[in-house]
């Protein structure tokens, strides 16, 4: 071994310190990091599987929104079946006349009578 090699080996030997336990503060930080990684992963891992109906319910805003939507639908249906007189007059005023469009030809059932 040359003198230079001895010098280098002496330098290495001096730097070969034993393993060191990190400080309590550093260990706390490391565990806080682990907790943050667990917290990020938890919502995805623990989220229950939802059915199609539940997904739709969530999309419209949950049960309160569903109740409002149902009430509006019933009200709309009722107005369509039995419109108040004021609404009939209003539509006549806007469109000029009220027309009735028969869904079936009037004589379609003529041959079936008596």
């Amino acid at each position: 071994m040359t003198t230079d090699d001895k010098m280098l080996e002496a330098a290495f030997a001096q730097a070969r310190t034993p393993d060191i336990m990190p400080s309590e503060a550093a260990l706390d930080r490391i565990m806080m990091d682990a907790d943050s990684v667990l917290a990020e992963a938890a919502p995805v891992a623990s989220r229950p599987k939802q059915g199609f109906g539940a997904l739709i319910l969530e999309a419209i805003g949950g049960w309160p929104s569903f109740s409002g939507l149902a009430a509006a639908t019933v009200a709309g249906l009722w107005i369509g079946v039995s419109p108040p007189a004021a609404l009939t007059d209003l539509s006549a005023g806007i469109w000029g006349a009220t027309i009735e469009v028969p869904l079936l030809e009037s004589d379609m059932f003529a041959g079936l009578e008596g």
Partner: protein
Amino acid sequence: MAPVQSDADLLAAFAGGDRGAALTLTQRLTPRVMGQAYRMLGNRTEAEDVTQDAMMRLWKIAPDWDADRAQVTTWLYRVVANLCTDRLRKSGRGVALDAIEEPADGAQSAADNMQDTARTQALHSALADLPDRQAQAVALRHLEELGNPEIATIMDTNVRTVESLIARGKRALIAKLSGRKEELGYEDDNR
């Protein structure tokens, strides 16, 4: 007595949400991780930062860990070596003299302590000036005292390349230190 869980098993348990597994891994792995960083950087604060960074990378990779591909300790050796050379390169220097901690050995004289400190600082400065791969190979061989095949696995290369990196690294270190022999007291060192 319960069997000792492997690092990979604990990492899988952590990925499944087991905080206790993270605690066990922290207590088991951090002294060696911190030791490697300290031996390479010569500074406790920086070594703790590297340790925290390396462990954070371990937590993040846990869900994707493939136990058949690598050992946790091998992976950590690589991560710590890379983090240390990154720090040395980015700072563009060796560790400052006043950042090197005094040895705790009370039996040594103050003069010896100063000389030891100067020598350690000189080695870290010289390591910082080496190309990253040379510095990593030399540190893994001569500070961690690992065998060349293990270093080759850590550095994802072959043994011949490791031998070459170490030889070139040591020549460069000798060139840098030999100019300071007298200053560092190597000329008349009989210790």
